[in-house]
């Protein structure tokens, strides 16, 4: 595990270098307010990457989180606009509950019916996104319809730090504790590493998977409320395509899509890295049109770097040439990896 830690230290170093380089071009970037802006901007991505990390560790993937976020966000926005007297605490509980329920649907289909995660979450992603439209009738819920306390909560400061950052910090600590010190968390790594062996040692795979997707959904629900409140608007297309950004953050953080490998630090750093890039672009006067292309290059670089050493070649005992004299020379074939 030592080289894993090394990799995350490297990523942290890379982020610091990036901040330093941007700071040289534009010292304004290094100011406290600008840095806290970057941190606040990264919170939602970070929180979603944390639970997505748990899902990916089990060899799964949750494509429905952005739709879940939109649906939970829309439902809480509608709830708050219909019942303005509800306290923010009730709203947050509602958001958590809605998200959890939507996540558990994924989890039940994947855990108990043994269906492939990518297909299930592809399906629920469409359904949830469509339901946002059905619920709202395609209309926007604007800031005028939402109560002031509802909108103010995410960016309200407590001891000088915004609620968003506090919530993200709590999420980081809770996820770290789950992944590191609970049976539940350790089981997820076992499932991802060796599903068959995990079953033989008596891990309740179905139940574990169901609650992993439940957690992922619950986080998406919470982020749904935070997103809607922060930007003070709810509409059908909210967070469209964001699931890929979240997965990208995980990939950059060294979480292996093949399962079994991933850490909280990786998810956090991956999300921070993407946020720093996105916030730095306008400051160094690179057109925002470059944002997506740069993100793509960063993802590809990260996976290529992570992949080195992961390429296990099967050993071939008989050369193909010896089986078939007309076969091409061995050299060209040996380079192929299976």
């Amino acid at each position: 595990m030592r080289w894993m830690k090394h990799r995350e230290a490297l990523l942290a170093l890379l982020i610091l270098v990036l901040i330093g380089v941007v700071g040289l071009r534009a010292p304004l970037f290094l100011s406290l307010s600008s840095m806290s802006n970057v941190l606040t901007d990264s919170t939602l991505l970070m929180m979603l990457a944390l639970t997505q990390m748990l899902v990916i560790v089990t060899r799964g993937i949750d494509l429905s989180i952005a739709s879940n976020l939109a649906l939970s966000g829309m439902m809480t926005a509608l709830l708050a606009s219909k019942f303005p007297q509800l306290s923010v605490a009730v709203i947050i509980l509602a958001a958590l509950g809605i998200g959890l329920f939507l996540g558990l649907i994924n989890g039940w289909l994947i855990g108990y019916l043994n269906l492939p995660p990518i297909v299930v979450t592809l399906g629920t992603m469409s359904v949830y996104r469509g339901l946002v439209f059905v619920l709202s009738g395609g209309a926007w819920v604007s800031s005028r319809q939402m109560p002031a306390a509802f909108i103010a909560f995410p960016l309200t400061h407590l001891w000088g730090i915004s609620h968003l950052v506090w919530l993200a910090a709590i999420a980081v600590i809770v996820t770290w504790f789950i992944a590191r010190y609970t049976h539940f968390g350790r089981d997820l790594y076992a499932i991802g590493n060796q599903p068959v062996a995990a079953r033989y040692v008596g891990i309740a795979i179905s139940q574990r998977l169901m609650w992993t997707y439940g957690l992922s959904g619950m986080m998406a629900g919470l982020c749904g409320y935070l997103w809607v409140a922060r930007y003070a608007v709810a509409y059908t297309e909210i967070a469209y395509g964001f699931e890929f950004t979240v997965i990208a953050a995980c990939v950059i953080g060294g979480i292996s899509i093949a399962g079994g490998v991933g850490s909280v630090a990786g998810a956090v750093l991956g999300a921070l890295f993407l946020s720093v890039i996105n916030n730095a672009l306008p400051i160094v006067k690179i057109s925002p049109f470059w944002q997506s292309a740069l993100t793509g290059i960063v993802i590809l670089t990260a996976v290529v770097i992570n992949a080195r050493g992961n390429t296990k070649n099967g050993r071939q005992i008989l050369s193909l040439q010896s089986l078939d004299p007309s076969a091409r020379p061995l050299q060209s074939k040996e380079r192929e990896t299976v």
Partner: protein
Amino acid sequence: MGRWETLLGILFIVVFVANSFLLPNFFDFYNLADSTFNFSEKALIALPMALLIICREIDISVSGILALSSVAMGLAHHYGMPAPGLLFVAIATGTACGFLNGFLVTRFALPSIVVTIGTASLFRGLSSVILGDQAFTGYPQLLVDWGQGYFFDVIPREFVVMLVFAVLFAVLLHATSWGRKIYAIGNNPVAARFSGIAVNRYRLALFMLTGAMAGLAGFLLTGRIGSTRPNIALGWELEIITMVILGGVSIAGGAGSIGGVLLAVLTLGMVTYGLALANIPGIIMTIVVGLLLLITIALPRLLRR
């Protein structure tokens, strides 16, 4: 034909009959023919995507490739390339994008879902870098002819192109040794490798084929809507993958048929057309498609319990 295709066939007939009973104007031949515009381009990409998924790979970047191909056409047109050359530009761009995907997947032994999430962002990003907040318009008549035109004034050309390619792909997958090897790779890549199939060469070729078809779809779509914008074909990759999975192709690889994919495409097309005639907004369609997908994969499991 396997059981899945039979089920899909029944579903198709049910949808068709239900539509014709419920909707008075369903059998308007011109409307029916025009409804094929909605899915022909997506289906063109679904065909190679089926091969990729059978081969245990996936390509999330297809709509990014389509966008970049369309942008390349726009640039080429801007610099005076004649109309037939634009088709070449679109397909060449798509093939090059597919090569990049395939190269990264095979050279570094990376999971294709991760690589293509990255290149999806890259391709669409490059499109928006080139386009900025502009759009390419004013394409030549040839593109309009192929994008919106008809054969014999009734059958949309795009639909015919799609059918021709469906036949080509069906022959390729089901009647050649090339196709058999794709199944072999999907079932067990390691065993396929050891039995002498150049697995990575097949993977690379399939990614390039998918890119080329996305380029072709880009040519047709650009002609149909007459412009190139950064958000062209946004989100198509998931609809295309849905078509393929609904068509009975196993996401775990090794199983599926072109006939199934074609049936799924036509069934979805009929559902969309019916909903459109009934004045139901397009986004409701996403719920229907999502539920169809979930029910079709969950039902066999539930029944077997």
